[in-house]
């Protein structure tokens, strides 16, 4: 069992106030500012948001699942580049996660890579945790 923690402080109102992700258990990041404007407007103004953190979590989780699956299949990857784009509709919620991966995998053909990527998308713990998102898409290709 593994616990991972984060601490956030907020001062003032939603629209005029602001928050700080002060620290996380690993010490890897913080403080990071978060504001409602950074979350709900097109321009993030250099500030992160829950949706960007979810995108980071999902991209990282998917990449680990895929690299593990490729290694088990006898074709460990040289490099995987994964992006995740999370769509948030205020008032409705998180409506979509779009995963995109480009892989350098010596000795593997495209079909096998696509299959491994679909399996990683289906089974990585963050995919399972986000199973209630209405739409999770995957675009996978070898480079």
């Amino acid at each position, binding site marked *: *069992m*593994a*616990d*991972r*923690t*984060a*601490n*956030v*402080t*907020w001062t003032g109102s*939603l629209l005029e106030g602001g*928050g700080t*992700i002060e620290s*996380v*258990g*690993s010490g*890897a990041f913080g403080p990071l500012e*978060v504001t409602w404007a*950074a*979350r*709900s407007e*097109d321009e*993030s103004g250099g*500030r*992160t948001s*829950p*949706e*960007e*953190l*979810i995108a*980071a*979590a999902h*991209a*990282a989780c998917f*990449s*680990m699942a895929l*690299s*593990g699956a490729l*290694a088990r299949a006898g074709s*460990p*990857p*040289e*490099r995987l*580049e*994964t*992006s995740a*784009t*999370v*769509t*948030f*509709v205020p008032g*409705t*919620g*998180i409506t979509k996660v779009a995963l995109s991966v480009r892989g350098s995998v010596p000795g593997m053909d495209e079909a096998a890579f696509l299959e491994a990527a679909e399996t990683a998308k289906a089974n990585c*713990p*963050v995919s*399972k*945790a986000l*199973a*209630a998102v209405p739409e999770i898409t995957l675009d996978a290709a070898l480079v």
Partner: protein
Amino acid sequence: MPRIVREAEISWEGTTARGSGVVEALSSGAFRLPTTNASRIADPEGKTSPEELLAAAHASCFVTSLGSELARAGTPPERMHVHCTITMDEVEGAGHRVVASTIRARGVAPDADPASFAQAAEAADAGCPFSALIRASAIVTIEVELEEGDS
């Protein structure tokens, strides 16, 4: 309502067991962080993990919902502090799963009493998009404490 898009990227080199990645916030540029599988399931050794990023996402989502619920109730907060723990466990036959997210929320809201603060936290949990998602697959627990202000 507008559609808001937030993007992040990871570059991973090598296998899961021995490789490593760098996860980067593309929309904001706010972070660029190393991660490994070991940092995920064992001692983090200063590196982040998907589950830690989820903890940060849930804490920052919940805090904004709590603030707006307190304001809506006419008891706007001066200050709130939210701690989130995401627990991943090995579930028999299902591999590693996020099994729980535990929120501890403290705050100073001069016009709130403990009952109305707890009620606002309950409404915040119902309204936070991340709570709504994770509740479908994991146990969400909310603990709250109304604190005395400085005045």
